[in-house]
């Protein structure tokens, strides 16, 4: 399903990062770009090591065995999207092939939390916990796909088709999640993941504009919590419920929340560094206009770091073992 075009675009993007596009800030952005490469490498390393501890997550395992007809129907239409530039293709490609290992890291985090909580490390992760990891990745993928649609002002047949496929693909993943959830036979978990689904859809309807009570930064936090935080928090919480690790449930939940916020903050920083039009980026809007580029970056890095530290603090409550150590490494890899 990967198009040559898509693969080429991705490679150009990567190398474009090193080659600065803005001649004025050439030295600064090159240094920052290079450091973002190192940061990315740390992350990839930490995640690869973690995969060895809990095994590769299996985000689309159930899809491969059931619902084959439906997938082939969808695949036929997806092929027609090649060359249209619809976001769905890029999203789908990233979900299947991800060079920086982000497509299944959420599931991986859930598996790691499940493993880290076990006092007896010879105990394996429960099948239900693995399913929960799968559900986490499915729901996140559905979110990405559903938000990757284009509001069209003028009719455009191929982009319309892309939107149509985006709705169907996202729905398909959500429906699979529902079925898997029901089979977990735990209604509390159903409620928690349902909340995550509601929350990510709510995030779209929030304006990141400061008002009397909240700063723009607070609003960003609130939106990111809804968009990314609730899913990871509730998934970690659910996994610990399924594993009967009652005393760690709250810590797991807040770990999930903090790591999600830290991760998102880091993504914003990296994308801001690479952004062509700084003024369009969300970070630009979070600080007073006229704030210099380095100040925006360092201020937001501080924000990111508070969340990383909070995540590490939650992790300190877990037993010391390979899995919890791997989680610490992943969290620290976000700090640069």
């Amino acid at each position, binding site marked *: 399903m990967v198009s040559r075009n898509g693969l080429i675009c991705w490679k150009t993007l990567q190398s474009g990062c090193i080659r600065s596009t803005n001649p004025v800030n050439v030295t600064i952005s090159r240094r920052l770009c290079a450091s973002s490469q190192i940061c990315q490498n740390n992350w990839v390393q930490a995640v690869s090591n973690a995969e060895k501890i809990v095994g590769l997550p299996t985000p689309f395992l159930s899809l491969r065995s059931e*619902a084959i007809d*439906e997938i082939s*129907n*969808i695949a*036929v*239409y997806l092929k027609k999207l090649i060359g249209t530039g619809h976001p769905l293709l890029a999203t789908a490609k990233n979900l299947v092939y991800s060079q920086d290992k982000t497509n299944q890291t959420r599931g991986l985090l859930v598996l790691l939390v499940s493993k880290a909580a076990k006092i007896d490390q010879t105990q394996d992760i429960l099948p239900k916990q693995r399913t929960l990891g799968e559900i986490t990745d499915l729901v996140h993928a*559905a979110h990405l796909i*559903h*938000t990757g*649609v*284009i*509001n*069209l002002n003028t009719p455009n047949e191929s982009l*319309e088709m892309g*939107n*149509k496929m*985006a*709705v*169907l693909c*996202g*729905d*398909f993943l*959500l*429906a*699979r999640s*529902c*079925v898997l*959830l*029901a*089979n977990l*036979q735990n*209604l*509390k978990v*159903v*409620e928690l*993941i*349902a*909340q*995550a*689904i*509601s*929350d*990510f*859809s*709510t995030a*779209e*309807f*929030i*304006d990141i504009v400061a008002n009397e009570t909240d700063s723009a930064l607070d609003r960003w936090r609130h939106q990111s919590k809804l968009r990314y935080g609730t899913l990871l928090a509730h998934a970690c919480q659910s996994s610990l419920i399924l594993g009967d690790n009652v005393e760690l449930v709250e810590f797991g939940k807040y770990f999930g929340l903090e790591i999600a916020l830290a991760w998102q903050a880091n993504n914003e920083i990296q994308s801001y560094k690479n952004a062509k039009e700084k003024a369009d980026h969300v970070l630009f809007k979070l600080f007073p206009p006229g704030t210099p580029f380095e100040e925006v970056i360092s201020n937001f890095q501080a924000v990111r770091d508070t969340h990383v530290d909070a995540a590490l603090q939650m992790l300190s409550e877990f037993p010391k073992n390979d899995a919890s150590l791997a989680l610490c490494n992943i969290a620290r890899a976000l700090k640069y």
Partner: protein
Amino acid sequence: MLRIASKHLCKGYSRVPLLSKRKTLKQLHCHQFQTGVPSVTSLATAISTKNKELREDSLVRQDVEDVYEGIREALTDTQPLLVPVAQYYFGGDGKAIRPVITLCWAKAVNYQLGKQTYRRLIQDQKRVCQVLEMIHAAGLYHDDVIDNAESRRSRPSINNVWGIKKSILAGDFVLGRSMRIIAEINNEDVSILLNTMIDHIVIGEIMQLSAGATEEERFAHYVDKTFKKTASLLAHSCQAVSVLSGADSDVQAMGFTLGRQLGMAFQLVDDILDFSATSAQLGKAAAVDLTQGLANAPVLFAAQQFPELNPMIARRFKEPGDVETAFQLILQSDGMNKTKELATEYCDDAVKQIAQLSSSPYQQFLFTITHKLLNRIK
């Protein structure tokens, strides 16, 4: 063609848990009918008077209003910008046929088991209806985006008012809230039934991307798709309320079958109206299915008479002039009559399910509903 449909009539849905035995049509026919009305056509002789209509309506009216009130509550506790989008299709001007049928069946079963006053039970059954309507609405939000619809229920469609992205996410929001209500019902079996329902709707929508290659395949595909997309909602809801009532697997099967047959009949009548009703009556554009490239029941029946429809079906009426030509051919054919016959068969089977219940005002209302469903004009 009718034979294939009848095969699907008798076939119980194999993936349904909790149902042990499935009675054949012949066995069902042997039961003593207390009301002596074995077919929906003979219901026509017991036409409702205005008073009877009002009386029957009042049986479930308050509960249906409670259902919608509950839905509005569940969708209010969120971002102010999201509330009007999420509540857009819950204006109360829809037909509410699904909750009416489900609640009526629920009450009839409760009555049979002597549980008509159990408050907690009725609360939970109303929750099933809330979930049912919310999932249906979420499906409509997404459908309208997919079909690029202009209007629905005589109002601009949701995508026209708020754009695509917000409509899709509002649908997801409603889905999330409905799943929360499923958890509130606190019954594992019901949770499995209702989550299966969600799966079916989506699969049904995806099934519309393709059709069968041969005539037989196409019809089987159409029946399966219609079950998943439309009838499954009612089937699983009726079964779910039976489960909550503590009914045995036979009554659960009756509920499932009733919901299924009424759902199928409802869609078939919809298909007929797609051709026969004018846009003004329907509140949305007519011949929508054709313009979407879909071959519904009248089209498939007409293709038996006019084989020139087959290549048009295969290319999804894409070529210029296809939609108009097909429209004319279908009006000329007996496709709509055959569809009506099939819908009547489904309603007959629905009546057989209803007739097995103890005699009650709810049972009578279900007969009325079945008759009205078959003969509606919008």
